């Protein structure tokens, strides 16, 4: 009796449901994704195995939004391995009963979080390959379309039924505003199939309140990404089938499905906005999970302006609505049972104390006190697990565009949210003029960004056009930032040639010598060090890293679209070079420094 009590007592210091990381969310709302991914990465490194997925996903989302997918490589690998591990919490029920859920169970995410995570990993792979790894994007989308268990439409008096996939769409009652279940693709596919279809040869699984009825997924994002990827992989049958499923899930996505099928676009923008619902522990002993909207659900379209072309795109996925569907969230019967048992023990213990007092029985009183203590502990540790991936968005859009080569600025806004407006300085098109080939970009729109969000570019990074904003000295464009210029392209023969043609750094004879100049300043270059290195902030944002955020990302807009403090050289060589080239790079400031004041002239 004492051993379990001692176990529960040990759990008391950590009691209490987890609160969301408000700082992380605020950083994301302001598009300060570098701060967010660095903080989340630090949390992941300090975390235990049970919570790591949560922090890794925050890191991955922030890294992609920042346009630095390399910072998400290790988290993506760990998250994928965890998501693909079945039964990861089997055998932990007893431990969770005697301690708390969040101290016993590995957090894998609510089903909707797992589906989103698979899609984000596929997106990460595509972005890491310049927006063109359609095979891995498709794999991520396929993994997101796992079989769900529907509890809300159970008829508890019905006889158990077979769970062939073709039965599911016709058997359910539909609640108002329910999305239709898609017809599953016929049979297993030789090239691919989602894990969703139920094997007709399997023994029938009875539906019950604790098991539910298996149903095909209605995860619109998974179907949309699969269709887009299949189109790029030249799999017309799969495109046709998946687009039909997408239309069945949500008729409002019919036009999107039609455009996917035609392939008349060369740019795919996956756009996130808002913050997903917060998991709140409520009810008696906080055993019930309730999802509370952070960003309200609206039907506002995404407005995209590229040159003279303008398009509007509907909401593809609303996570507020998804989180409220029982098939997309986890069960909580054990927590309620634990709370009820605790209540029972308290009542019994109180009775024992009263009776023991009346009969002067110390043993009974002690037993009663023990039961009360056990009951209190059970109730105190039966709170719901409120762990969640903090940076899940509230909604997603997919915009399919035909941009003129080689690309250009693109303006985005959620229609009645002016604070979401962002001007991406340069969204590149595919590196081929073959018709039908597309390139994927990921954009996370802020809800409280600074003025930079709508300013033109001030700096020149890899893969984007040189800035042409008014006020930028022409000579500064082809000079590195560490020398007082506006160029933050990573060292290469091409970059060095452009410096030489502008008369800059003519004594630096090779790209590796240019890299050494950066290293002498303590500046790290992405891709030149060991894998899985922690990637800090960009030198423009007072960090020690030089990299180019993915063009077409909000991170690139934040880094390039605002004026940053001038770089202060550390090494004597760079100080000398800076003084040598200052008249060429910034002639106005060089003239001001050399001009004599009237007092000086009088003194001389």
């Amino acid at each position, binding site marked *: *009796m004492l051993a379990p009590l001692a176990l529960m007592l040990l759990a008391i210091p950590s009691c209490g449901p987890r609160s969301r990381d408000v700082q992380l969310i605020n950083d994301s709302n302001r598009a300060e994704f570098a701060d967010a991914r660095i903080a989340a990465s630090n949390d992941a490194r300090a975390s235990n195995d049970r919570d790591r997925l949560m922090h890794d996903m925050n890191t991955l989302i922030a890294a992609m939004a920042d346009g630095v997918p390399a910072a998400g490589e290790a988290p993506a690998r760990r998250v994928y*391995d965890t998501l*693909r*591990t*079945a*039964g*990861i*919490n*089997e*055998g932990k029920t007893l431990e969770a009963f005697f301690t708390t859920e969040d101290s016993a169970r590995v957090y*894998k995410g609510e*089903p909707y979080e*797992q589906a989103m995570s698979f899609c984000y*990993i*596929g997106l990460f*792979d595509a972005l*890491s*390959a*310049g927006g063109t*790894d359609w*095979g*891995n994007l498709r*794999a*991520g989308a*396929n*993994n997101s379309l*796992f*079989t*769900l268990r529907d509890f809300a439409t159970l008829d508890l008096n019905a006889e158990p039924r077979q*769970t062939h996939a073709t039965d599911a769409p016709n058997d359910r009652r539909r609640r108002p505003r329910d999305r239709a279940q898609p017809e599953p693709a016929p049979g*297993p596919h*030789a*090239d*691919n*199939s*989602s*894990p*969703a279809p*139920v*094997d007709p040869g*399997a*023994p*029938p*699984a*009875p539906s019950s309140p*604790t*098991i539910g009825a298996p149903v095909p997924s209605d995860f619109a994002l998974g179907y949309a990404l699969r269709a887009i990827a299949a189109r790029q*992989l030249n*799999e017309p049958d799969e495109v046709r089938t998946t687009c039909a499923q997408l239309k069945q899930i949500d008729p409002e996505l019919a036009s999107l499905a039609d455009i996917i099928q035609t392939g008349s676009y060369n740019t795919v923008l996956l756009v996130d906005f808002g913050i997903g619902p917060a998991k709140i522990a409520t009810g008696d002993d906080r055993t019930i999970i309730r999802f509370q909207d952070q960003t309200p659900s609206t039907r506002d379209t995404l407005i995209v302006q590229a040159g003279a072309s303008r398009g509007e795109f509907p909401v593809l996925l609303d996570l507020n609505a998804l989180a409220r569907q029982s098939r997309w969230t986890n069960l909580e019967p054990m927590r309620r049972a634990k709370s009820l048992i605790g209540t029972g023990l308290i009542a*019994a213990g109180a*009775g*024992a104390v009263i*009776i023991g007092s009346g009969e002067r*029985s110390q*043993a*009974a009183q*002690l*037993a*009663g006190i023990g*039961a009360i203590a056990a009951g209190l502990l059970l109730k105190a540790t039966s709170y719901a697990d409120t762990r969640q991936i903090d940076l899940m968005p509230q909604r997603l859009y997919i915009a399919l565009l035909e941009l003129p080569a080689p690309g250009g600025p693109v303006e985005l806004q959620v229609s009645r949210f002016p604070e979401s407006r962002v001007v991406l300085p340069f969204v590149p098109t595919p590196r081929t003029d073959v018709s039908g080939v597309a390139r994927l970009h990921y954009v996370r729109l802020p809800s409280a960004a600074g003025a930079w969000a709508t300013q033109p570019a001030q700096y020149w990074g890899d893969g984007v056009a040189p800035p042409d904003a008014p006020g930028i000295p022409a000579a500064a464009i082809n000079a590195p930032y560490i020398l007082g210029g506006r160029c933050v392209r990573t060292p290469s023969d091409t970059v060095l040639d452009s410096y030489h043609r502008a008369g800059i750094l003519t004594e630096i004879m090779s790209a590796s010598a240019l890299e050494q100049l950066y290293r002498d300043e303590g500046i790290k270059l992405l891709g030149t060090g060991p894998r899985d290195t922690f990637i800090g902030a960009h030198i423009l944002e007072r960090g020690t890293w030089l990299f180019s955020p993915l063009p077409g990302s909000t991170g690139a807009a934040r880094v390039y679209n605002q004026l940053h403090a001038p770089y202060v050289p550390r090494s004597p060589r760079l100080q000398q070079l800076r003084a040598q080239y200052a008249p060429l790079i910034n002639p106005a400031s060089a003239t001001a420094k050399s001009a004599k004041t009237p007092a000086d002239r009088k003194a001389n």
Partner: protein
Amino acid sequence: MILTALENLLTHRRAAITRSLIAASLCTFALSASCAGPSRTSTYDSAALLSSAESVREAFASSTFLAGRNASSPEIRLLVDKMENFSSERLTRTDQLATVWRVVSDDGVLELLRQRNVRVYFAPRDDDAMARVVGANYRAWSSPDRPTHILNARFNSITRGQSLAGSLTDRRDDDFLLNFNVIEDATGAQLWSHTARFSRASVGTQVD
């Protein structure tokens, strides 16, 4: 009744119950340790992938595509293209490249190809995957030359999932297929093809 049970627990049966609890705990731990149980993941592992690539290499070395050629035969410039992922499995760029590299990088195969006037090379890449897989001399294996033939690779899978009767437990079976073929660039004709297979299965709640 509850009161009596509690009194008995404390005064008369404490020792017996304690021994029972300890025994039950020990049995649980022993059972957990001794039962290896089915695999919890059906993802591929790099070793299986590379082993499959070796079987492809053996088939390639003895293929009719290379038969009848010698050092005086017209040069074949064989471009080793990337491995396309058509499976439900995440396949990293490094694994993609490592698999095709395993097919062509064997010293025996390279000598065989040299004797048959077949030059193998990769298209230039803008990422560091070649450096990771091939090593410091990766540039020697890249060329922008127009090929005469192309070595393609494709990674497929057949995935089946089912719910086990009366429980939340799932079973997932993944059959992986690794297909290589050689295409003549000018005509698009397929001159050689080989497929290797391996399978993985996992049991346990997939969406836990």
